[in-house]
């Protein structure tokens, strides 16, 4: 049987399929729908130093092949996570990655430090890309200098494998990725959602309370895939790709484009056991192609001739 393991810094994952932050709760909610032990990993809902209420409803709207959300990072806070959720999560043999964010760089560092002090956290994913909050989030992700500074600070706060999650809305995402790498990140996660909007023409009002929200789901896959391909060629650390993945073929597109692992987000809502289907599908693909090791697929994109657009 093919070897599906993949490495993110010093962290070895069973397989390359992780559940994406904000779409898998604190993991436990899905234990009725699939065997958490089979996952490559679980990235839990974004955690902040203090609990957060999030944005007023309405918070979501469907669009063609996608959805907008403006949750606003509602979460129970890092302390409640550690005391109320982590003990149960620890009973599973699955890599738990804590997605974190703060209003200030110092807050990020504090959350990271707090999580490093407890058992059962396999890695930290730093969200510098949420489009749905005023302070923090995307602010740090659009600017390479800020992103570097923040990463360096969090790097000092923890020895855990560090993933930094980028926004597709950065003017120069490759530059952000390079700087984040230089600052000591072990991996780049991308993409977070794209900023979008929907209007109720009956009332001439936005469908979301915050007017705009983050677009996710199959609709964004071609955009996310292109960014993963671009960034993977520019950095030496692993890239964890995501954006619209809903099948093993989708996941393989990202892996062929250069991702060492993938995350599945919105598709969990469509089919709560989809991560397992994707893992099995990747295994079948390797089997059918007689490939022994997933790593042989990573970045295996073959470009015929030159990549010339006409001039």
């Amino acid at each position: 049987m093919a070897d599906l393991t993949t490495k993110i810094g010093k962290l070895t994952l069973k397989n390359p399929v992780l559940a994406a932050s904000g779409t898998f709760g604190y993991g436990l909610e899905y234990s009725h729908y699939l065997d958490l032990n089979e996952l490559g990993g679980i990235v839990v809902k974004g955690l902040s130093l203090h609990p957060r209420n999030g944005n007023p409803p309405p918070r979501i709207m469907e669009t063609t092949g996608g959805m907008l959300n403006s949750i606003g990072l509602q979460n129970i806070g890092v302390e409640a996570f550690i005391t109320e959720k982590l003990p149960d999560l620890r009973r599973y043999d699955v890599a738990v990655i804590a997605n974190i964010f703060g209003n200030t760089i110092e807050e990020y560092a504090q959350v990271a430090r707090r999580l490093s002090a407890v058992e059962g956290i396999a890695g930290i994913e730093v969200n510098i890309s949420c489009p749905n909050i005023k302070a923090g989030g995307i602010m740090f992700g659009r600017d390479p200098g800020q992103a570097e500074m923040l990463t360096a600070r969090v790097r000092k706060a923890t020895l855990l494998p560090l993933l930094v999650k980028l926004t597709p809305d950065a003017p120069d995402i490759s530059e952000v990725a390079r700087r984040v790498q230089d600052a000591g990140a072990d991996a780049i996660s991308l993409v977070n959602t794209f900023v979008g909007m929907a209007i109720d023409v009956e009332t001439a009002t936005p469908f979301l309370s915050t007017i705009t929200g983050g677009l996710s789901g199959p609709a964004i896959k071609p955009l996310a895939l292109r960014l993963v391909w671009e960034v993977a060629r520019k950095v030496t650390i692993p890239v964890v790709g995501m954006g619209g993945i809903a099948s093993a073929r989708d996941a393989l597109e990202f892996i062929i484009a250069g991702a060492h692992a993938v995350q599945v987000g919105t598709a969990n809502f469509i089919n709560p056991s989809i991560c397992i289907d994707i893992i099995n599908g990747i295994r079948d693909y390797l089997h059918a192609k007689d490939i022994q090791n997933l790593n042989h697929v990573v970045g295996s994109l073959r470009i015929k001739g030159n990549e010339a657009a006409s001039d």
Partner: protein
Amino acid sequence: MKSTPVTVLSNKRIAPHCFRMVLSGISEEFDVEPGRFIMLRVGDRYDPLLRRPFAAYVTETVRGKALEIFYAVVGYGTGIMSGMTPDTRLEVLGPLGNGFTIPDPSRRFLIVAGGMGIVPLRGLTHRLIDTNCHNIHVFAGAKTKSHLLFEEELKTREISFHPATDDGSTGYHGFVTDRLDRFLAKDLPKKGNGTVCFACGPSAMLEAVAGIADRYGIPCQVSLESRMACGIGVCLGCAVKLRNHRTPGPDNEYYGRVCVEGPVFESKDLVWPI
């Protein structure tokens, strides 16, 4: 509990605005407390992407246990559903949510429905009757007589049925909440007085019911609707503002999930207007 593949047994219009769909394929163990719901995947493609929530009801058919839903055609997904022919294959997730909390049968039950809000409340009345509740009043508001659902079914021995229509084509001519108010004004219960209230319908109507119940000191459970992505508590998309009674002060409001903490809430726990 995985997503269950089901098959459309029948799908027929039963009122100008409403279809009844029966879905076979659920297991013998599938059971639904009144007020709980299912998330229905409308097809197998990515358009529409998200599942749609509907009040769930288990019915018996010649082919065994089946799931029965009643839906209004209001948009894209329900529009597609209305064109579905028997044998169409769909996916059901559930039953989900909390359902109504039923107090002891000796109480007087006021059931207040607006429009499609009657659907989960119909399941509730069946359960009340099954558990030997005798004092049941159903207040059902609808646009016209032909929009009034389950009229025959609910006119039973145990139920006093009080319809109200916008055009007066049957029952009270006006809002169902006014009908309720008049009823209580005439038959004023003392604080508590054993009366309980259950409501489902448009949010303005629910707010009015909550206000009336509050005035008369009647505990009131309301069933809410909210746009949902996951239905199982992970996306936080269905949030509704709740009051934390333990912490008074300005910080005592927080968001709960309609899909897990609800869809049924005590009206006093909600921050109105929702």
